[in-house]
């Protein structure tokens, strides 16, 4: 048996690095000279999507409608025209949602966003993980 496979220490170190990175990205986001709040992030995301004339909105990071990833794809498309809507599913089943979530993550990577979450975190609407996604996208958009 290989003890290294399950090494808590490596896992612990990587988690700490990841956590440090999430926090430093969130801390670097500023709105009006102040560090952003969760509300600022939600307002920003909704504003970006609204700008492109789309109607989807998120009410908070636990919003069940986020499950389909359609909101994230519209947000990505508003940051840079990059979504091929022929690939996007309506998200009526979990399988369709997962497909959209994978597509969301692929595009976010291509835009240079740091990825902290997995497709299943989106489908399960894990609020903290979704916060990291919006934070990363905001970071990329503000840097543009």
């Amino acid at each position, binding site marked *: 048996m*290989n*003890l*290294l*496979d*399950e*090494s*808590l*220490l*490596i*896992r*612990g*170190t*990587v*988690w*700490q*690095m*990841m*956590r*440090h*990175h*999430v*926090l*430093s990205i*969130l801390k670097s986001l500023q709105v009006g000279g102040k560090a952003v709040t969760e509300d600022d992030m939600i307002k920003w995301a909704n504003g970006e999507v609204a700008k492109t004339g789309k109607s989807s909105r998120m009410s908070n990071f636990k919003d069940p409608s986020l499950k389909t990833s359609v909101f994230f794809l519209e947000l990505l498309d508003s940051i840079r025209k990059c979504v091929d809507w022929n690939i996007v599913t309506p998200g009526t089943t979990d399988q369709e949602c997962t497909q959209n979530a*994978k597509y969301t*993550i692929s595009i*976010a*990577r291509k835009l240079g*966003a*740091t*990825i*902290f*979450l*997995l*497709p*299943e975190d989106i489908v399960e609407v894990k609020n*903290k993980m979704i*916060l*990291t996604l919006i934070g990363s996208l905001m970071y990329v958009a503000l840097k543009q």
Partner: protein
Amino acid sequence: MTEEEKAQLEEWLFASEGTREARAFALWMNSLGVDPFVNNLFQDLRDGLVLLRVMDKIEPGIVDWSKVNQNLPLNRFKMVENCNYAVELGKKLKFSLVGIGGVDIVDGNQTLTLALGMNI
């Protein structure tokens, strides 16, 4: 990385095999532009080089590469040195890695427990 290795990585990142945690680490590192591994994340992290590369991405300039053993293959002592250096940098960044040395990373000392999880 060869094209074939990249394709393998891509497939693995989104495959449902592999623990959720390992895949999250891998996606994160990959999005930073660090290609972590092809086969086994934790196995491939133990030479300390990937950890240091990631460290350098999240805190640019923090790694003094002249202190890092980079000539592969690394023997165990060189791996430990690299891991010790990663731990030292972690302390600088105020990671809570109390009681951890590079040897523990290389040997995978499981008796030490760490607070896992992101308490943002």
